[in-house]
């Protein structure tokens, strides 16, 4: 499997209140052709900023270090035209709130054919025909009628499916999905995720899937990275992340969620609140909230390193391996 997207040592600062504030610290990750990669984190963790750095969609004044390579080419070296082709043809983005990314006074048909006409040079009539086929692929019934409707007339789940089909219309090689189902009801979330997953696999598309929901990422992604305060703290195969978390934060994140299968007397909650990247202390960013903190954690920032096929940013990853995996058993014993 060849690497399609490679982020190496990416650090980003943004201007705020007269200074440059760090939003991403030394992020590295790689997505292979046709691979789905989950990026999980709480608010302020830098997951959306990472996605925007890939598209070079950072606010003015942003300072970027490190490399973002798409198919071997550094995105930061692209000129205007090449950047437009990259954004228009190679990568597609799906957002949390589809309604704010559509124009309320233009029909779904207008919206969907715009990219086809411009990027593919299609005529209006062909484009509309193609758009109807595309809508059928995302299981929208009566697509011809939908094309004449306005965004307001569609429910959130349906509109998100329209966005997916519009994103796929240009036949990109990578999809960046930024919390695409967070605003949806749970049944619609399952439906939209199933459709996205199916289409992605059929076409062999790579995907960067950004979410706050560890279980959702694990369900649809081959590989998952967990971010905290602008750092990637852990990155490994999704199925192993849940049973064998390597970083205390990932373990805490999956334990802290209540479960529909059992009631706990108390949830194992992490104290404190998630830090934003610019608040990160000089040592380990998670140290303050970590139950396994030692002096070293506060004094020295851990590096991202490999451990049993996983990447982890924790001084004590080896010695904690059993504890972190084992705390699931403790949870079960608290079962009421």
């Amino acid at each position, binding site marked *: 499997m060849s690497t399609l997207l490679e982020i190496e040592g990416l650090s980003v600062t943004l201007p*705020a209140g007269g200074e440059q504030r760090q939003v991403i610290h030394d992020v590295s990750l790689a997505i292979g052709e046709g691979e789905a990669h989950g990026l999980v984190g709480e608010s302020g963790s830098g997951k959306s900023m990472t996605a*925007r750095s890939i598209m070079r*969609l950072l*606010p003015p004044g942003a300072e970027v270090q490190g490399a973002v390579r798409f198919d071997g080419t550094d995105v930061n070296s692209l000129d205007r035209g090449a950047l437009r082709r990259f954004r228009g043809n190679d990568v597609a*983005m799906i*957002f949390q709130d589809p309604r704010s*990314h559509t*124009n309320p006074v233009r029909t779904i048909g207008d919206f969907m054919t715009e990219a086809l006409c411009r990027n593919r040079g299609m005529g209006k009539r062909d484009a509309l025909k193609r758009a109807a086929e595309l809508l059928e692929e995302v299981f929208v019934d009566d697509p011809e009628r939908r094309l004449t409707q306005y965004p307001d007339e569609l429910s959130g789940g349906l509109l998100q499916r329209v966005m997916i089909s519009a994103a796929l219309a240009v036949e990109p090689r990578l999809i960046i999905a930024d919390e695409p189902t967070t605003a949806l009801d749970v049944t619609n979330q399952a439906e939209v995720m199933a459709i996205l997953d199916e289409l992605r696999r059929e076409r062999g598309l790579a995907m960067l899937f950004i979410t706050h929901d560890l279980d959702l990422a694990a369900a649809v992604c081959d590989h998952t990275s967990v971010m905290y305060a602008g750092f990637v703290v852990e990155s490994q195969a999704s199925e192993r992340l849940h049973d064998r978390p390597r970083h205390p934060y990932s373990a805490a994140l999956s334990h802290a969620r209540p479960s529909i299968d059992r009631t706990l007397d108390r949830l194992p909650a992490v104290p404190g609140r998630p830090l934003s990247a610019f608040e990160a202390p000089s040592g380990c960013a998670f140290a303050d909230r970590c139950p396994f903190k030692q002096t070293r954690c506060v004094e020295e920032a851990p590096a991202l390193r490999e451990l049993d096929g996983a990447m982890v940013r924790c001084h004590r990853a080896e010695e904690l391996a059993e504890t972190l995996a084992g705390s699931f058993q403790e949870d079960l014993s608290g079962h009421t």
Partner: protein
Amino acid sequence: MSALVMGRRRLAAGREAYPRLGVLGWTSAGFLALIALIAVFAPLITPQDPLAIDLGNAHVAPGTDYFLGSDANGRDILSRLIVGSRTSLLGPLGVVALAAAAGSTIAIASAWIGGRFDQIVVRVVDAWFSFPGILLAILAVAVFGSGLMAPVIALAISYIPYSARVTRSGAIRERRLPYVEALQVQGFSAWRICTRHLLPNLAPLIVAQATVAFGYAMVDLAAISFLGLGVQPPTPDWGLMVSQGKNGILQGHPQETLFAGLAIVLTVLAFNLLGDRISRVYQERS
């Protein structure tokens, strides 16, 4: 891809969470504070008697004797501008204070009660807009006699719908916020919620609207003075000075009209800029 462009714009707007008034806003505020100070201390700082007629020194050009020159009656223009700032500021202040008080009362009541009452208020306010303020003021002067009071009240009435419309839209937005419902659930009376919670939270919006309206009121009152229906000579007033100086222009002595006009223009400009900045700060906040 239009979606991407929109995403970037939203992001950029989101980053600038608490913009301050900015250079223009602060400059305007400083300028207006200076004018206000001048108005308060006017009698103490006039270089000459603003009412002393000296026909021998009529139409003196700006210079060392008369910093901004003298008018047709030989009175010092700078001194008259300084003293004139009092009526010129007091008039618009009266207009916007009355209009904002009445307008926001109507607006908050309308937004709170809602339903049919709100619909009627909206219609009435729409119709109200067609009242020509200046004509109403002229009518008021014809009935109640000239001076500051009649045109101020008349203009205030014609300014109410502007204040009411802006405040109502803000009040309707505010009323839908969960904190207002929480107050209702706490058993607070409508009066208390409106006066202690809605009104203070809408204050920046009301002030922003009043600030912009102040500029317009100043121009309107100057126009009324210019027509000779407002403040009467020999009381110094900027609008009146523009009017009285117009004969001088033809004789090649534009200083009175020019400097009085400049005072009006700069003050109005400052009010507009400041009002604009305040309303932006309010919008960013909410």
